[in-house]
């Protein structure tokens, strides 16, 4: 039976949530902190949570000197996302911290707040770390459907629900990391480098 145009014929790579923060202390300088969190509800290697956090992206060291970490509760998923996704995002993979990051375990993730309210947060706990991610000054939810030329990998079609955030912070065991979000552009929208992405699906191009 022919497939109607509203069913994508490309395979689903993964689907879930993918909020992030890219922070600077000097708007004209390098990134001071980079963070991506993944709550994946389906992938070929199962569901799970992953946190990629660079306290200093340009430092070629991990814990305990510097909180450059990749935490996960599904190691196969961590490796799948690292090679198939993060390594296609130059901002996160073309920095010394990527290969130096300590690979740690997630024991628990606690969600608080409301993306339609004043704040939203995820607290990732494991291996002696409690990392709190907080997004504030939240924008209007916007549904996106991006073609490959507008996605970070340049290879996928991507559905997502964006909530922009003008203010955010990261705390590692109560210690706040330095930096603030800056402005960016995506699909013609003027946005911040702090963002929530819900119901995000990465799809290989139609066959």
């Amino acid at each position, binding site marked *: 039976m022919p497939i*109607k145009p509203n069913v994508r014929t490309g*395979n689903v790579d993964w689907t879930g949530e993918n909020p992030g923060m890219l922070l600077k202390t000097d708007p004209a300088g390098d990134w001071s902190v980079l963070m991506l969190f993944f709550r994946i509800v389906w992938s070929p290697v199962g569901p799970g949570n992953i946190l990629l956090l660079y306290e200093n992206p340009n430092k070629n060291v991990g814990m305990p000197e510097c909180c450059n970490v990749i935490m996960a509760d599904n190691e196969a998923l961590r490796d799948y996302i690292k090679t198939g996704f993060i390594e296609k995002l130059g901002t996160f993979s073309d920095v010394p911290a990527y290969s130096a990051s300590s690979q740690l375990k997630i024991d628990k993730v606690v969600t608080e707040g409301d993306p339609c309210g004043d704040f939203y947060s995820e607290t990732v706990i494991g291996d002696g770390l409690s990392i709190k991610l907080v997004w504030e000054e939240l924008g209007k939810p916007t549904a996106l*459907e991006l073609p490959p030329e507008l996605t970070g990998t340049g290879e996928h079609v991507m559905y997502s*629900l964006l909530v922009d955030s003008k203010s955010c912070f990261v705390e590692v065991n109560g210690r706040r990391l330095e930096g603030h979000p800056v402005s960016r552009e995506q699909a013609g929208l003027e946005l911040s480098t702090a963002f929530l992405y*819900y119901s995000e699906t990465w799809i290989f191009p139609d066959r």
Partner: protein
Amino acid sequence: MQRTPVNAGVVEWSGENPGIYLKEDPDGDYSVVALFFRIVLSPHGRGVGAIILGDPDKAAGYPDIPNLCLTNNRPMMNYLIDNFASKFPTMAGKPAVNAMSWFDVTSNIQKNGDMPNSYTEELSAGDLTVQMTWLDLQAPMAIEVGPDASATKEHDMYAVFLEANNAQISINGNPLQGQVVSRQFFGRTMSTAFLALSETWVSPR
């Protein structure tokens, strides 16, 4: 279908919305209609809920008849029922929707570690426990539909669907009667048990 990268419409809600529709007679109406909701964004906040219509044509609630709604966010669930679920073809006009008994959820356990073999959502409200289990899950497919093809006939909808070849619903360990059947869905012959993940509903402008 004309689509644009940025949907100018108003986002209504987003989350997960798997369902199980069962029949005792393959040629008859659905004997069981059930939907689960895990909402990450809505005008009424976040939460979980389930609608279980064990006898959709009967205007009666639990425990007399297994027609019930469980949730940890009643305003959210009322919004979802009034504006979405009650307009779905499987629930539209069914007397059980207005007659079902409501319960406040005290715990939700999601068992998703054994995909694709099985996936379970368990909701408890005090002594009452409802389990919905999807078995033998198939490969996911990403869909996008406009008002012409969405279940409400009013919204744009994006989602990832995984067909389940079998499914079960139990209330306090007692299974509801009926079998999964096949139906035409987005141009394919698919089972009436499905996971719907990463689902976003938008009111078009």
